[in-house]
């Protein structure tokens, strides 16, 4: 009886957004009297962090500090329309809408500043700390708080903007499947290292190495959250999860977390991830959606690693100890008969076999 180690690979792409019925999201932005900008949305934060990302996109576009932005979501009475948080669309659609709204507000902001400073708006720039200043003559400047007060009480201007991103409706051609469903594609390649206990059938994932291409990581710490949590979910899907473990039979369905198994903190592998960025032409600052993709590559990588480790090819999810043991039994039977067909391929990559 032994623990057999193996390595497996998988590479995937993932569409950002999924459009069949037209896929819009809107953003409105306005300045308060004292130069705080409120971004109004109806977009939902499931924990992925759209509130933070929307604020970053607004701050960058306005040229103001992140702290000057408040995101107000999600209330259908006060926020403009959003299709919803799914299909890795949030950052892409909402980010684009916020950028468009903030760009319009920035234009007004610079116009009012030009009047206040008695210069040409085209000569103005933002310094990122809250000042609007004349390019090359930064002693001539005004703080956004003073500017917003002036806009309200002297110029009678609203510093505001409207934004929308629309992926237009597209109908698939039924005969061929010709369609334009998505906006861009993110990419991932995972290498999994597993250990299979050939006595118990238990698979332990030891290492996950991931390369992700995501256009641009708008907030690298939050990108890391998606990457880590997603890879964990992929591993969980691979090894444990099923609401109907004997599908298509409906029996033995788990009812709670003591029966629906997922890896705990004790089961997490060493995870190393590197990010590549190929900015998407239509993405907010080049960003693509990555929330969903991160779970996908680990599943086949783990399955392929199990084959590499012990010669058992698992073609049904999840990869439970029962399936591994049945596969090992079958291989042993084949061995007895002298049939060495698929097993002969098992050590092809020549990893250590204790």
């Amino acid at each position, binding site marked *: 009886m032994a623990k057999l180690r193996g390595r497996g690979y*998988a*590479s*995937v792409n993932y569409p950002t957004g*999924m459009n069949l*019925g037209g896929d819009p999201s809107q953003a409105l932005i306005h300045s308060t009297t004292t130069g705080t900008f409120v971004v109004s*949305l109806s*977009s939902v*934060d*499931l*924990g992925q962090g759209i509130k*933070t990302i929307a*604020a*970053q996109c607004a701050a*960058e576009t306005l*040229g103001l500090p*992140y702290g000057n932005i408040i995101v107000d979501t*999600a*209330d*259908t009475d006060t*926020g403009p329309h*959003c*299709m*919803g948080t*799914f299909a890795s669309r949030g950052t892409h659609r909402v980010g684009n809408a916020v950028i468009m709204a903030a760009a319009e507000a920035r234009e007004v902001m610079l116009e009012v500043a030009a009047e206040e400073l008695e210069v040409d708006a085209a000569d103005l720039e933002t310094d990122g700390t809250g000042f609007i200043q004349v390019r090359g003559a930064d002693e001539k400047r005004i703080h956004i708080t003073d500017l917003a007060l002036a806009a309200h009480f002297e110029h009678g201007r609203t510093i505001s903007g409207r934004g929308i991103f629309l992926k237009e409706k597209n109908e698939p051609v*039924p*005969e061929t*499947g010709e*369609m334009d469903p998505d906006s861009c594609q993110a*990419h*991932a*390649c995972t*290498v999994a290292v597993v250990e299979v206990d050939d006595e118990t059938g238990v698979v332990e994932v030891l290492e996950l*190495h991931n*390369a992700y*291409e995501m256009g641009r*990581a708008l907030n690298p*710490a939050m990108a890391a959250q998606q990457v880590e949590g997603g890879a964990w979910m992929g591993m969980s899907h691979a090894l444990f999860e099923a*609401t109907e*473990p004997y599908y*298509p039979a*409906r029996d033995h*369905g788990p009812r*709670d*977390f003591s029966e*629906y198994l997922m890896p705990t903190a004790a089961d997490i592998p060493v995870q*190393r991830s590197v*990010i*590549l960025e*190929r*900015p998407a*032409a239509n993405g907010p*600052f080049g960003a*693509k959606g990555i929330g969903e993709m991160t*779970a*996908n590559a680990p599943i*086949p990588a783990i399955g*392929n690693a199990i084959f590499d480790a012990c010669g058992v090819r698992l*073609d*049904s999810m999840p990869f439970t100890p029962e399936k591994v043991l049945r596969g090992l039994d079958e291989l042993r039977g084949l061995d007895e008969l002298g049939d060495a067909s698929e097993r002969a*391929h098992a050590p092809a990559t020549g990893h250590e076999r204790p």
Partner: protein
Amino acid sequence: MNHRVNPIDKSYFAGERRDGDFTVIGSVVQRSDVLGHVTGRTEFFEDLALPDMLHLKMYRSERHHARISGLDVTEALAVPGVVRVLTHADIPNNLYTPLKLIGVGPDDEPILAEDTVRYLGDPICAVIAETEAAAYEGVSRVRVDYTDLPAVFDVEEALAEGAPLVNEYQGQNHFIYEGHHCRRIRFGDVDKAFAEADHVFEWRYQSAPIEQAPAETTGCVVVPQADGRLRVHSDTQACFFTLDNTALILETPFNKLRVVGGTVGGGFGGKVDVVVEPVACVGAMLTGRPVKFVYTRYEEMQVSSPRAAERIYIKDAVMNDGRITGRKVTLYVDAGAYARHSPYGTTKAAAHLPGPYSIPNVWADCHCVFTNRTPSSAMRGFGVTIGDFALETQMDRIARELGMDPLRLRLINAYRDGDMKAHRKIAEGTALVEVIQKAAEMVGHELPDAYRRMSSTHREGR
């Protein structure tokens, strides 16, 4: 700060990055919601204290497929604290399908069962009570007589001649795509590819349903307003989608509803169906009091729509040098008893084929199949995750059969900028080659120069 970030390798696509001088983008800024989370002050929909709130609990089908021959709620109504029991007769427009908003039909799912239940857990009547305990007690006193009907649980059995009909509103056990029995991809000539191939490989893949399992279960609190409107506090993933669908079910003007949410304890696709708000709104309208309907963990696990089980057959035409010249995929998505979002997910699955590879001949039949099972719906990676499992397992098997390095096999076939995908969209912004090269480097997997020089932006010799 002790946060973790993944290194960004900027040597890839350096010429396209145009980094500029970002001040906020690309920087680590604190999450705007974190102080609420660590102090317990973040308000989720259920963190709402309403003194006169009622609780709604659902009585659900105990059979997979049955006629309802009798329904008796008198004992449930006699439970102290039970205020009302809702049946289908109380729902203004009882039949719906969530994608009707983008023109997908037919309406095929009752909010509350009328004369038939089609899966174990199909909602039949809703007990509304002063306390949760009374609502549960009421549910336990509901009496339903069932006459069992034959049920079908396997996707291919469901499509076979003579299979029991799961959903008479659909009329057959599959969704119809513009007159076709499935979503199809037809690109090139796969039969010719098989005839000319050095090898033909065909394997079958299967998955089981998977639960989204967010920490917070699906739910809502509906609060009647003085002006006759309803304020719906919900953990929906899509506020307007929920509002619009709910208004259609209630047959009220859209502006009678206000959905408040946006702070959700995980979704992963499990909160895009409109399954709690309509019946809770009816309860609030009929009682004039706030009504809370939150799924139990059991309901979340077994009744809320999971990621669909899929069965996938992949047949590949492969040349000795590793080029895949044809790929034929037959996909069965187990939608369960009702369509929900599955017709859309099946199309998304079709668009993803044949994976991130340039294969000149592709044929796919993607079936959205109805069975007597909990309706499936969206989950993280909708339409793609299980396909990727099958496709990437297939790639590994081909590499083994050919005795090839599995990464080189992928690089040979990787899609590049300018390639025509099977759904006839020109690929752009591709980076599969580069993530494979990077992953190989990370684990010390040697690639020959020719493979290290490959690029997504151009194909060698072109």
